[in-house]
């Protein structure tokens, strides 16, 4: 589907995910090929149930594919065991979920430092990194707040900070604005824009045309397969970005 890139951060070939068998067979992801270059932001759009989230789970090693291959930084990862996938997620992939998935009993800073602790960082280093990231997402003053005391937009910014905790090669975002109001959506859009500008590789699954407009490429998905791909000139510095007021 995409143009060949010398060393893509993420590459998928013939990726399939099927449920059931016989007449009840459902192809949630149907022979998807994908290359994502370093620093590139790719948005995947499509109607509900078209397989976007499943694709993201397969790319991030949260779920097992029925067939096909996935490479991350040139290393094949679809054949890794559960432990290998866990290490991969710990070191190379950050997730942002629609419903934030923050630990309710942990404060913002404790949520953000958790991936660092799981990766074996010292408590001090993990905390320092978490505080830096919260500062970066504009929540330094909310570091000691529990998620229940934060707005939806603030929670998603905490989730983004957590996704960046271990400096991942790839951030996968699943409907990151799906549970947010307009103002909070704009906050998160700006945050993704800044990540993009900082060279972070992003794959974003979304319903939201505004967030898709911040991408370098927009891929349309139907019935588990990619049906269209559009290269957006300049990403957030292009016309759509200007239209949405996301440019400097």
């Amino acid at each position, binding site marked *: 589907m995409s143009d060949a890139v010398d060393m893509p951060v993420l590459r998928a070939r013939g990726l399939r995910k099927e449920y059931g068998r016989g007449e009840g067979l459902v192809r949630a992801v149907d022979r998807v090929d994908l290359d994502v270059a370093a620093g590139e932001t790719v948005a995947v759009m499509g109607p509900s149930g078209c397989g976007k989230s499943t694709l993201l*789970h397969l790319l*991030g090693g*949260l*779920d097992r594919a029925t067939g096909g291959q996935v490479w991350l930084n040139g290393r094949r990862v679809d054949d890794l065991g*559960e*432990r290998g996938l*866990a*290490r991969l*997620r*710990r*070191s190379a992939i950050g*997730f942002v*979920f629609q*419903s934030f*998935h923050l*630990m*309710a*009993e*942990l404060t913002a800073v*404790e949520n953000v*430092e*958790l*991936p660092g*602790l*799981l*990766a*074996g960082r010292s*408590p001090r280093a*993990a*905390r320092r990194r978490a505080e830096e990231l919260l500062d970066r997402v504009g929540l330094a003053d909310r570091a000691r707040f*529990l998620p*229940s005391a934060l707005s939806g937009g603030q929670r998603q910014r905490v989730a983004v900070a*957590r996704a960046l905790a*271990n400096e991942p090669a790839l951030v996968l975002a699943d409907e990151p604005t799906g549970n947010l109001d307009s103002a909070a959506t704009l906050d998160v859009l700006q945050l993704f824009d800044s990540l993009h500008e900082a060279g972070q590789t992003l794959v974003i699954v979304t319903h939201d045309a505004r967030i898709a407009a911040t991408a370098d490429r927009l891929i349309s998905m139907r019935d588990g397969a990619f049906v269209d791909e559009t290269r957006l000139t300049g990403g957030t510095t292009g016309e759509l970005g200007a239209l949405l007021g996301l440019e400097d």
Partner: protein
Amino acid sequence: MGRLLLVGRLAVRDLRRRRAEAVLLLLAVLAATTTLTLGLVLRDAAADPYRNTRTATRGPDVIASGPADRLAGLSTAAGVTEHSGPFPVAKAKIQAGGRTSDVQAIGRDADDATVDRPELIRGSWTRAGGVVVEAAFAGALGVHVGDVVVLNGRSFSIVGVAVTAAAPPYPQANCYFPCAIGSGRDIPPGVLHNPGLVWLTQADVLGLTEEPAYVLNLKLADPNGTPAFIADHDVQMKSWQEILADATDVAKDSQILLLIGAWLLGLLAVASLSVLVGGRMADQTRRVGLLKAAGGTPGVVAAVLLAEYVLVALVAAAAGLAIGTLTAPLLIGTSGGLVGSAAPPPLTLSTAVLVALVALGVAVLATFVPALRAARSSTVNALADAPRQPRRIGWLVAASARLPVPLLLAVRVAGRRPRRVALAVVSIAVTVSGTYVALILDGYLTSHPPYGGYDGAQVAALRHVILVWTVILIGLAAVNAVVITWATVLDNRHASALARALGATPRDMTAALAAAQVLPALAGAVLGIFPGGYVLFIAIIGITGGDSSRATLPSLWQLLAVVLATVAVVAALTALPARLGGRRPVTDGLAAPG
């Protein structure tokens, strides 16, 4: 009436919908009610063989003993309807089967007296040179009809084995001479120690001693008026009620053990129910919302939630009463020395009411707070099936950051539900306390056979009771451990999946879920020994009026073994649920309510 019907119908339907949980609830309460019933009815069950013997042998109401002149006139005293004797009694040493024991020999030429006709189990009645041995004593000595025994240096042939209601079975005894019953330390010279009972001809008795005592068996017009009769006469006397108490002495000890076991099991049942109920209430959030949306008041909601546990408690009480009553005779062990075996005792109203109240108490104690909480919950939140928020313990979160990943996750898993951790600690502590006391009692029983006040069969009976007690305790604690682990796994589905999405391996998560159970188990095991077990032992000694200095406390290695075994068993029991929980697909867990 309509509301009551609705509450009952909803409760029954919910129980049917979750049969496995209902069975677990039932088993937890049943263990407590059965043990309590056993404890309450055991003495009545043990009393049956003595009553049978008393009827079969025309047992006396009062046995008077002393010098012949002191007994003169007693047979014609007011209130006496029949009598036999006075018969001469000699104290002697018996040598049989390579052992020497004290004995009291009663001179009875014939066994056809109007009062106290010892019933022959084997052989024939006394004749010159022939001895009849009391059945329990014969069992303890291991002698049979035809064997030869030596009494004060003279040989006698055993011609019969008999039972009587005029004396309690060996090792208990009526002391016609100064005697001591018990462990046998510091017995003064000349005092008989755990004397057995034999019958000889009167001539043979008088041949054994020059200073015989005499026994006189009396039947009274009012068999229940023995205390007044004894008080009116300045003679050494023993009533049939006192003999009954002696005859059921082991049953009394078993009863004390079982009642203590019942209370421990009651505590464990509260812990079991609390965990099960907590899990069920979490599943019932939406149901509560629907009930409230349909117009149910908080009172009706609480009544519906409580009703099913009350139903389970009542069924458990009924089943516990039936099982306890029917199995009580099995725990009495030997009825040697008495006629017939123990039969299921009649169930009294007070026993039934007490067992039902305890079952209801356990159910209400475990369910009241969750039911009240559910009844007061917001209807909107309940309809949305919002999960109960986990607790935050700030210092624990901070401290856990310094631990290796599995322990970090374990501490945080445990910290999310401190009440559940407390229940796990209590459950293990109660079990280990019971085990600690069982070790002490078992050590005491096995270090004093068979002359320590109990004969071998009685020691076996008491050890049987302790074994039953311990097995039920450990069984219920094991069920608790599995239920608590499973509740933890279910409750942490989302958090576990999230931790794995963030980089925790399945092994990290499995180890964390298991460690979240093993750490409370370790704490419970240590607390169960001290102060738990020690305090329980002191309490038992306080209740029974025993002498703690006669018991040997478990050694350090035994205690260490108990702690390690507890931890190992909990680890083994929780391994499978923890493994299943740690390896669930991440995407499934993320979809679970968080």
